[in-house]
């Protein structure tokens, strides 16, 4: 164990962890929203994210950009990032709603047992990622370098880059907007009503089918934003890019308290940071092992996650 390494690199590890955690947190919101309303783990959410990564790369490709293109000027970059986000958000949102309509809704109509939903979710996830795998020949796809990472803040050995700031700020803004929407708007109140008591919600005139579509859409929107940030940060995607990150995002949701929006944020940031501390302590190859051991330990003491479930009960 490398304690002095951890202490020496505490700052850099924290910054890296927060940026990774912010992406995980946005990704995690989709799991937590759907679980909060339907008590269903939507495993296909990892492919909702995956299609977001491809959609943005394809749109950038329309402008003749690939991973070898030089970085465009600043205004072009801003425009391209916004366009990429629109594309990703549309692709992810449509995928999320589509999966719900095609795979889950028919099961709900028939009052299918939980297990049928679970296996359908896993099936939908694999079907989409394998289809992408076949179409892309299982090759990696490079992302145009839209942002040349430069240090904006330097404190001692801690360097904070422009991209890291962008990622964390964007995640916090999206999180804030979603929280406002769920807690303050009429539709948000409808979502909470279905989460807390579906029969009562129907008696209030809430269209349950529409609320469920909306919930999947919101999760898809957040995943689309996460996908673009992932592209900019990692620089490549592949048919299985959603898989491991999806498990991390799901873990973050459980860690924070699944069904709880703020829990997803906390869980994501915490997971990102802890992974990097673990990597600092034991070496990078231990990054995932450490974080999942921590998950197990935390859940032993707080089975409902750090903030507890809440879309279903207290405030989201």
């Amino acid at each position, binding site marked *: 164990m490398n304690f002095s390494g951890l202490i020496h690199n505490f700052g850099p590890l924290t910054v890296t962890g927060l940026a990774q955690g912010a992406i995980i947190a946005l990704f995690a919101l989709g799991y937590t929203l759907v679980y909060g309303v339907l008590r269903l783990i939507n495993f296909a959410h990892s492919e909702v994210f995956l299609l977001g990564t491809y959609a943005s790369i394809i749109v950038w490709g329309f402008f003749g950009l690939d991973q070898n293109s030089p970085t465009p000027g600043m205004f072009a970059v801003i425009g391209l990032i916004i366009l990429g986000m629109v594309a990703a958000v549309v692709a992810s949102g449509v995928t999320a709603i589509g999966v719900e309509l095609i795979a889950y809704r028919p099961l709900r109509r028939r009052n299918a047992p939980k297990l049928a939903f679970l296996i359908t979710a896993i099936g939908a996830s694999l079907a989409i990622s394998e289809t992408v795998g076949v179409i892309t020949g299982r090759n990696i796809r490079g992302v145009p370098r839209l942002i040349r990472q430069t240090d904006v803040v330097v404190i001692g050995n801690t360097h904070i880059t422009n991209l890291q700031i962008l990622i964390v700020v964007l995640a916090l803004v999206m999180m804030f907007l979603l929280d406002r929407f769920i807690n303050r708007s*009429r539709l948000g*109140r*409808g979502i*909470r*009503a279905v989460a*807390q*008591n579906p*029969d*009562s*919600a*129907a*008696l*209030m*005139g*809430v*269209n*349950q089918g529409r609320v469920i579509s909306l919930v999947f859409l919101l999760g898809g929107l957040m995943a689309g934003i996460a996908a673009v940030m992932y592209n900019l940060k990692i620089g490549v995607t592949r048919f299985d890019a959603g898989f491991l990150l999806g498990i991390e995002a799901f873990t973050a949701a459980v860690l924070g308290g699944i069904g709880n929006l703020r829990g997803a944020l906390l869980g994501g940031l915490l997971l990102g940071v802890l992974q990097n501390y673990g990597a600092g302590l034991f070496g990078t190859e231990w990054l995932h092992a450490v974080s999942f051991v921590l998950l197990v330990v935390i859940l032993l003491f707080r089975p409902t996650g750090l903030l507890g479930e*809440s879309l*279903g*009960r*207290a*405030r989201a």
Partner: protein
Amino acid sequence: MLLELQEISLSYGRIQALHEISLTVDQGEIVALIGANGAGKSTTMRAVSGLRPVSHGKIIFDGQDITKLRADLRVVRGVSQSPEGRGIFPGMTVRDNLEMGAYTRRNRVEINKDLDRAFSLFPRLKERERQMGGTMSGGEQQMLAVGRALMSRPKLLLLDEPSMGLAPMLIQQIFDIIVEINQQGTTILLVEQNAQQALSRAHRAYVLETGRIVKSGTGSELLSDPSVKDAYLGVA
């Protein structure tokens, strides 16, 4: 006629809970539905509000066949239910629970008027406006459920055991309020175990036994009916 059930049947899986029930509720009436535990009173309410589909028969509301209409769309037509067990949203404030009652409406001015009306019918709710629904006492939740059901401005209000779990003093009060709501123009279908109170307040009533209507008449007729007395009014 505001509501007409024509020979409706309803089953839970293999258990048939309602056997071709027919009943009517006229504009402006309070109609009570009494019967023992498990007779099918709540099931009848669920059929009217649309929470459960019927397997046979027709439901006519306000001149239109709503048998196949989704529950949320029946609210728009003017059906509102305060369900058995109250169905409060535990993680919403009292205020948000009431707002949920007005979910199908958009006119803020009118909604605020009805909030004031709910608060004046149930001053207790005003005091507890910011409290979470799930932390209210049983009696308070009952008031909240009735107040919330009124927030959609229903033509027909379905009340499933509004006196359940209330202290004797509050029971008197809730029935007074039910009569007041009715006098303000809302038609009411009332399910009650408390047959004495229900029959003395209702214009007409039906007696339900194991999923079948076995008797009907005005409230006072049934109050003095020997078999009803025996079965539902206890020994007075």
